[in-house]
């Protein structure tokens, strides 16, 4: 079964977000909601859904990967447009969590839907068994639960629940669609309350809140412990509650208490804290409300971050706690949980309770531990799932901890008997099953993870900033390994080594893929290093670094073998420039590309100006003459435009129209490798381009434009300085329009402009500001 057209019913936050994301996959989608009561005649009866689409277009972060995707969403209403469902292969129900309303809706859509179409509910609280009660047999066969996480575009988890009657081919087809086309990590769950992620997540939140009150921790202290040190987002518990809405808690609690089995540990852990009840009553519901556990106090003009005192309930300035336990333990989670002070006790209590609860739920909620870990990683953004955390602590040590804390040791932990839940055997990752044997962690077809490659062997070569890996079939992968994947001389050396090893591409090696599994592909050159060099006036070394980057990227571009970039997350500055020099880019859909150099007072110096100019110059849609292409490149670079998705990157020409987009991150490397092998067959390197550039005449035009922008108050004094330099490069310096200019000449201009700019104190201020605050300075 192919899903060529879909429908979402319910245009609330989740429903409309799911619709947007289905559109992101290029699939037309109908979005239906009710006709508001008391509509005047002639008014838009689909106003709810239509309004939702408008909201989607304004939301930040954007639910659409490209605004044009909104055209794939057809708004409608449940009275006039049910007929549209007849063309849909998949219907997602995302209406209010009321079994009666859902049942009624199912009965209305069942007769009009296409035979064999799949219907799924986005419920997070209602058991599937209850949902299909009283529905037709055909409906029960075609029905399942697809539980998305908010926001649907960005959260990678999709919990998929089938019932005893669900057609397995329908479930498989939908799982495949969600995996490949929507890019989700599909985790099969059993039809149990809260499925996997919310079941464990709700317990974790409750346990962490209880312990903070019991042990007398401040919210900052609690978040400092039950956050980064445990591989949990730095918001910790209280910050997370502020983010999702503190009033959401009682809803989840109510539904869990109504459905969880007797004796479930959550029931014992559940407590209503008067302070939290009071906060909800007073509208202190978090970021969407008047404040939460934290708030920004803007009284008196300033912005003071405040935190609530869990004892008194009063706000006070937030502190940056530095618990001694953290300083003493470093990255050692066990030492943290063993620390004698109350923050150590907090770590101990939260870890023991939460992990033991999670361990006690397999196989009740999932067949294997891998699903549980995956769900917590993708649904709650934990770096490690519960079983991975137990392994970090040691399963025997953890069993001992449970005993010390008076918690029954979960059967699965007993069964592990001191063995890890995961092990590497023969280079393959294996996990412990419920019957106590090890079996390989499954990887679907078309999934190639660099982490698997890394587990299986040693790198071909490595230095402090990059490693070279053999990803099979003669393809080499270059992985950045520096902090934040910043680029430095060692990165350039690694490219050099890769080129030397691959040679002419006709030996053992055929192609190179540039890829890594970090959150961000690369945030560009190592600014800290650059700033230090700049502060001590090491000008020749800085110039050499610019030249080395140009040399290396050019060598890669003209290498006798194909180079494929496979980015995900941010690819900024120098990280964008490497992509501009690749033969092909296979980008994860969530790739954020940009030449952001002007933000730190310089221009792209590793060929970024040159390459972007070439791409615009080759655009047949632009008017004739050199200026339109120059103006386009100038606009993109001078405004430091960052594409918010791979699709947007194509608009900005950071990516070519022919570059590939992979929705599922886990499939990125395999797709890139396949493309590299395809290109390697009969590969010929590109021919160097020549440029026709207007020289000083064109520059004057751009300078005038910049002056105009400055007069409108939209450019700062240093923007003007940087833009003038950029104009000089893009127009070819002293070029003469009758004489074609080669790449070398423009690269030389890039270098000179770059060096001139790093001598400017305002540029140094920008770099410094970026490094200290993480934000650009508008000087």
């Amino acid at each position, binding site marked *: 079964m192919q899903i060529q057209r879909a429908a979402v019913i319910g245009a609330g936050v989740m429903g409309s977000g799911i619709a947007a994301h289905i559109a992101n996959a290029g699939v037309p989608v109908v979005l239906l909601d009710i006709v508001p009561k008391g509509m005047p005649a002639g008014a838009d009866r689909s106003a709810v859904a239509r309004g939702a689409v408008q909201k989607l277009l304004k939301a930040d972060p954007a639910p659409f990967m490209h605004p044009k995707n909104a055209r794939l969403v057809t708004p409608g209403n449940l009275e006039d447009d049910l007929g549209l469902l007849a063309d849909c292969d998949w219907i997602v129900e995302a209406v209010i969590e009321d079994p009666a309303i859902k049942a009624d809706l199912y009965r209305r859509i069942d007769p009009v839907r296409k035979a064999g179409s799949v219907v799924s509910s986005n419920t997070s609280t209602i058991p599937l068994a209850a949902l299909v009660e009283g529905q037709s047999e055909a409906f029960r066969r075609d029905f399942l639960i697809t539980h998305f996480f908010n926001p649907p575009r960005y959260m990678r988890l999709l919990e998929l629940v089938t019932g005893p009657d669900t057609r397995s081919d329908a479930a498989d087809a939908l799982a495949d669609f969600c995996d490949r086309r929507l890019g989700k990590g599909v985790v099969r769950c059993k039809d149990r309350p809260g499925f996997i992620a919310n079941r464990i997540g709700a317990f974790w939140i409750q346990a962490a809140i209880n312990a903070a009150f019991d042990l007398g921790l401040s919210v900052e202290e609690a978040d400092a412990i039950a956050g980064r040190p445990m591989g949990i987002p730095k918001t910790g518990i209280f910050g997370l509650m502020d983010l999702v809405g503190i009033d959401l808690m009682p809803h989840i609690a109510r539904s869990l208490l109504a459905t969880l089995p007797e004796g479930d540990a959550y029931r014992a852990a559940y407590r209503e804290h008067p302070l939290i009840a009071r906060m909800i009553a007073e509208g202190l519901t978090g970021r969407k409300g008047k404040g939460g556990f934290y708030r920004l106090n803007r009284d008196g003009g300033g912005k003071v971050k405040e935190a609530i005192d869990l004892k008194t309930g009063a706000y006070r300035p937030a502190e940056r706690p530095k618990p001694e336990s953290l300083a003493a333990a470093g990255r050692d989670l066990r030492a943290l949980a063993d620390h004698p002070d109350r923050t150590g006790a907090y770590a101990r209590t939260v870890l023991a309770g939460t992990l033991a609860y999670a361990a006690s739920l397999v196989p009740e909620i999932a067949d294997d531990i891998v699903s549980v870990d995956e769900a917590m990683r993708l649904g709650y953004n934990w770096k490690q799932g519960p079983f991975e955390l137990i392994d970090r602590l040691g399963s025997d040590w953890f069993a001992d901890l449970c005993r010390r804390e008076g918690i029954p040791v979960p059967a699965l932990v007993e069964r592990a008997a001191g063995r890890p839940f995961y092990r590497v055997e023969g280079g393959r990752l294996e996990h412990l099953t419920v019957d106590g044997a090890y079996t390989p962690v499954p990887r679907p077809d078309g999934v190639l993870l660099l982490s698997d490659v890394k587990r299986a062997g040693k790198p071909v070569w490595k230095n402090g900033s990059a490693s070279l890996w053999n990803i099979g079939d003669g393809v080499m992968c270059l992985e950045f390994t520096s902090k934040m994947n910043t680029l430095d001389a060692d990165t350039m050396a690694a490219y050099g080594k890769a080129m030397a090893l691959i040679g002419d591409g006709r030996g053992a090696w055929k192609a190179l893929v540039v890829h890594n599994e970090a959150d961000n592909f690369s945030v560009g050159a190592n600014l*800290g290093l650059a*700033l*230090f*060099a*700049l*502060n*001590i*006036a*090491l*000008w020749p070394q800085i110039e050499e670094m610019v030249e080395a980057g140009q040399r290396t990227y050019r060598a890669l571009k003209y290498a006798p073998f194909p180079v494929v970039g496979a980015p995900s997350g941010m690819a900024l500055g120098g990280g964008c420039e490497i992509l501009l020099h690749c033969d092909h880019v296979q980008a994860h859909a969530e790739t954020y590309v940009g030449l952001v150099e002007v933000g730190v007072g310089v221009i792209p110096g590793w060929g970024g100006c040159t390459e972007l100019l070439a791409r615009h110059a080759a655009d047949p849609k632009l008017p004739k003459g050199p200026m339109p292409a120059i103006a386009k490149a100038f606009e993109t670079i001078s405004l430091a435009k960052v594409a918010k998705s791979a699709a947007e990157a194509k608009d900005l020409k950071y990516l070519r129209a022919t570059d590939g987009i992979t929705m599922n991150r886990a499939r990125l490397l395999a797709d890139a490798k396949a493309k590299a092998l395809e290109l390697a067959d009969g590969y010929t390197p590109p021919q160097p381009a020549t440029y026709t550039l207007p020289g000083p005449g064109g520059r004057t035009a751009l300078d005038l434009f910049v002056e105009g922008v400055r007069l409108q108050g939209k450019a700062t004094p240093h923007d003007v300085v940087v833009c003038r330099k950029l104009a000089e490069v893009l127009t070819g310096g002293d070029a003469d329009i009758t004489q074609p200019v080669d790449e070398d000449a423009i690269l030389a201009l890039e270098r000179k402009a770059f060096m001139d700019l790093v001598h400017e104190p305002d540029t*140094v201020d920008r770099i*410094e500001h970026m*490094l*200290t605050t993480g934000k650009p300075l508008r000087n």
Partner: protein
Amino acid sequence: MPIYKAPLQDVRFVLESIVGVERLSALPGYEDATPDLIFQVLEEGAKLCEEVLFPLNQPGDAEGCRFENGVVRTPAGFKEAYDTYVGAGWQGLSCDPAYGGQGLPKLVNTMLEEFVCSANLSFGMYPGLSLGAYNALALHAGDDLKDRFLPRLVDGTWAGTMCLTEPHAGTDLGIIRTRAVPKDDGSYAITGTKIFISAGEHDLTENILHLVLARLPDAPAGTRGISLFLVPKFLPDADGKPGPRNGVACGSIEHKMGIRASSTCVMNFDEATGWLVGEPNKGMRAMFVMMNAARLAVGIQGLGIAEVAYQNAAAYAKERLQGRSLKGPRHPDKPADPIIVHPDVRRNLLTARAYTEGARALGALVGYHLDVAERHPDPRQRRESDEFVQLMTPIVKALFTDIGFDAANIAVQVHGGHGFIWETGVEQYVRDARITQIYEGTNGIQALDLVGRKLGQDMGRLLRRFFHPVSAELATDMENDDLAEFALPLAKAFAKLQQATGLIAQKGLKDPEEAGAAATDYLRLFGLVALGWMWLRMVKAARARLASGEGDAAFLEAKVKTARFYMAKLLPQTGALFITIAAGAGPLMELEDTAF
């Protein structure tokens, strides 16, 4: 008998050609500080130092301070000299006119301090400590305390001290034990023992104001639990006159290697009444401001000793007749040639002179930036100058005091056996100079401050204030063939400094012991380059004046020749320093502790 003449000509040259003294009067509040006025003031100050303070130096050393029945007696003549000094308003030279000061730039005071320290380092301690106390109060105290006490410090009728060190807590002030208990009237009862308190007790003034570091009852451990208090020897009465004796007394004084006319006291505080200066538990911050100023002042002490030592060595070398020039008699009419004909004697003299004059230029530049940091209307300029001062403070302190000690040693060496006996007067400089390398943070601590705090701060932002101007100046001067013999060696040394800086930043990030091992060599390397920069500037200024026919040609030619000596004979030490820095911590750390 030693001699001393204040180096007014060189001071004038430095202020005019290196600092651009005329720029001072452009700073708000310094409108009257014209070059004419400044030089007039310095000439007067020179006279006082030469005629009043200098003659007391040797006798003061012989007599020393005496401790009798809880009272400290300064040597004969000190009280009269002090009265003359404060009577003429020197104490308030750079103090705020609102409190009776003269309101002259700090730079002027810096130059005057050099004269005072050359003339009589022991004497200089008393007004120096008072100025330190003034600075701390002016910056951190509330208006009430300022109004009550600052005028007395400015007119010199009362003196000040800094009470930091305790028997068990010197460099590590985080562990001090002196307690401060709040009293009902808002004051505090201070109890504890402080040692090594310069000017803690003396007979020069009617009252003494102690600035004391102590802990409040609920203070957190370490340096974040230290507060600063003002504790007068006599509690002022309603008219502001010294009233009843406070619970603070001198227990004894130290018998020291040098600066024997400066009283160094054990101070016992027994429920002494004091007032909080600044915020509770923020005492270290307040003290740091004072310490930074004090560190610069100690650097100037080193410069003062170096100058007077050089003057005596040079005078002796010109008059001491002994042996003949290696190339045959130069003065056949005399029984022997003066020893100045010998290359090695000249090496000694030029070494002392080149360091001293270079240091004077650098000290003046730092002093100028101190004023800009405080007064410039543009916050950016203020910040940049402040950063320059912060960066250079440990260098001025350690380098200048090392130079002072080295020059004093050179003076003894040039005097031969006569230098070793007391009457000649130069051995006193060796003894007096020695403490300057120790107090206000040993020179080893200064080096750690440079590599540990200053170097890495904000990815090297402080460094920019030195490296960028030097780099820019070299870029221009390297184009000028006439300057090649000066610019080239400096460029080489500067490159070594850049390399060493990068190396330490890189290695020190991974292993702090690497930075610690390089610290002293690095500070010296940095200091030598900084002096080289000053010499390049001085050569350019001297040549420009020679070309225009202005000024004293002999003086200016000597400048150029001394610069040549510096570039050729002293600056190349940077090469060796770089090698020892690059050798890393290994050779220092491999010998087991027990094997020492």
